[in-house]
């Protein structure tokens, strides 16, 4: 365990040291490139006055709800498309066209329609998560070996049994690959929504820091976002390790 994380510790240390030396030696002012120490001080302050936990909780809520909604819809629609060629023919032009519009471009619209509260962010987040999970669900379900369907049918298995005993486990590796991409994108979705207009959340904090030339605060917000993305990525990896042991 210690051995595994040694390279990570070393690279983090080198990064911080390089950053610190850069701010000391270059003379770049603190409001453009703050030193690691001033970011750390700002972090402690934001923790103490409760602002960072508060805004992080808001953003995390948006992300989690967005993921739940996006992944649920993507899985259901993806499964239906994988099972029905005719449905795919009808729907896929719309799905592909929808991907040609960057979510960033319609985020302001969604905020106008759904308000500047949490709902618009959840929807933006869900939209951005939807596509990678959808595509991977389709690919995963399509790749289920037909021989396993034959096996289940020869045993007179029910549709539900085929779903639970064959389709879910067989498509899980590809599905989780999509979820991994989706989880990382979900952070972007929430922030995009908050940057358009919000009264709270890490995106709001980031913008506030920007307006007030509180650059250390911007850094704190950015690092918190990175931490959230890493955490979500890590959770998916844990799921993969848990459920895909049979692969390697």
């Amino acid at each position, binding site marked *: 365990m210690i051995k595994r994380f040694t390279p990570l510790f070393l690279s983090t240390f080198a990064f911080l040291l390089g950053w610190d030396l850069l701010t000391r030696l270059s003379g770049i002012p603190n409001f453009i490139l703050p030193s690691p120490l001033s970011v750390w001080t700002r972090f402690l302050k934001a923790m103490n006055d409760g602002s960072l936990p508060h805004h992080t909780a808001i953003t995390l809520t948006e992300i989690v709800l967005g993921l739940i909604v996006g992944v649920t819809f993507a899985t259901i629609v993806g499964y239906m498309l994988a099972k029905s060629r005719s449905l795919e023919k009808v729907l896929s032009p719309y799905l592909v066209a929808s991907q040609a519009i960057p979510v960033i471009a319609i985020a302001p619209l969604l905020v106008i329609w759904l308000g500047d509260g949490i709902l618009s962010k959840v929807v933006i987040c869900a939209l951005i998560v939807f596509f990678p999970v959808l595509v991977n669900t389709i690919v995963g379900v399509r790749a289920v070996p037909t021989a396993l369907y*034959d*096996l289940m*049918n*020869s*045993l007179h298995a029910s549709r539900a*049994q085929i779903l639970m005993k*064959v389709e879910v486990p067989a498509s899980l590796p590809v599905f989780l690959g999509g979820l991994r991409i989706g989880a990382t994108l979900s952070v972007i979705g929430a922030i995009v929504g908050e940057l358009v207009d919000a009264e709270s959340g890490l995106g709001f904090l980031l913008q506030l820091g920007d307006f007030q030339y509180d650059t250390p605060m911007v850094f704190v917000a950015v690092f918190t976002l990175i931490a959230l993305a890493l955490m979500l990525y890590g959770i998916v990896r844990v799921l993969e390790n848990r459920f895909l042991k049979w692969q390697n």
Partner: protein
Amino acid sequence: MPHTPILTIRNLSAVFPNDNGGLHALENISFKVHPREFVCVLGPSGSGKTTLLRILAGLIPPTSGSFTFGRGEQPSIGMVFQQATLMPWRTVVENIKLPLEVEKMDEAAARKKTNEMIELVGLKGFEDSLPRDLSGGMAQRVAIARALIHDPDLLLLDEPFASLDALTRERMWTELSHIWQARQKTVIMVTHSINESLFLADRVLVLTQRPGKIKMDMPVDLPRPRKDEIRYTSQFGKLAKKLRGAIE
């Protein structure tokens, strides 16, 4: 045989759609199978042997003709496919247990039966291995155990030993004929080995080149249990010659 047939096949034909009038895989197949009979189906590749088993297992409908089972109801079927068709995410035990799960047998009873099967096919010590760690012969034995575990009325075996080396194959013949005698099963087994069919079967059906028709229906009145040496008897030689003549 005095019993009523367990399976009656009448004028069965199978045509697969293609660009010039359909591909005729089977043409006008009729035969009966009696309870506890071991029938081998022999024929050149492409003569529709696999198609015949798939129709009997209910995986595809015949183009014309019909087949009925003894008491009129769909019998439970144990099928061994040309490839072992194991679920890579399930251990040996879990793969063998699958038919019992489909039947919703309670866990304790299923465990007990599975252990018996493990013993029977000589896989003790490999209970928790994954398919990727099994040799071809072991994987095929798992598939055979899985086909037997739910005590099916009818065993459908599609060249189950084709992928094995000669030595393992001959050991499997002995094992299969033991299992067949101990469990009193009705077996329809596809093979393209004359030796294999004479070693195991009560009766051999020879199919013609595509479209498959029944060319010969030959009883195998060799004494049981059949040991290795039976291959050097004159009776065996005579039957082998007859089959070879029918296959050309």
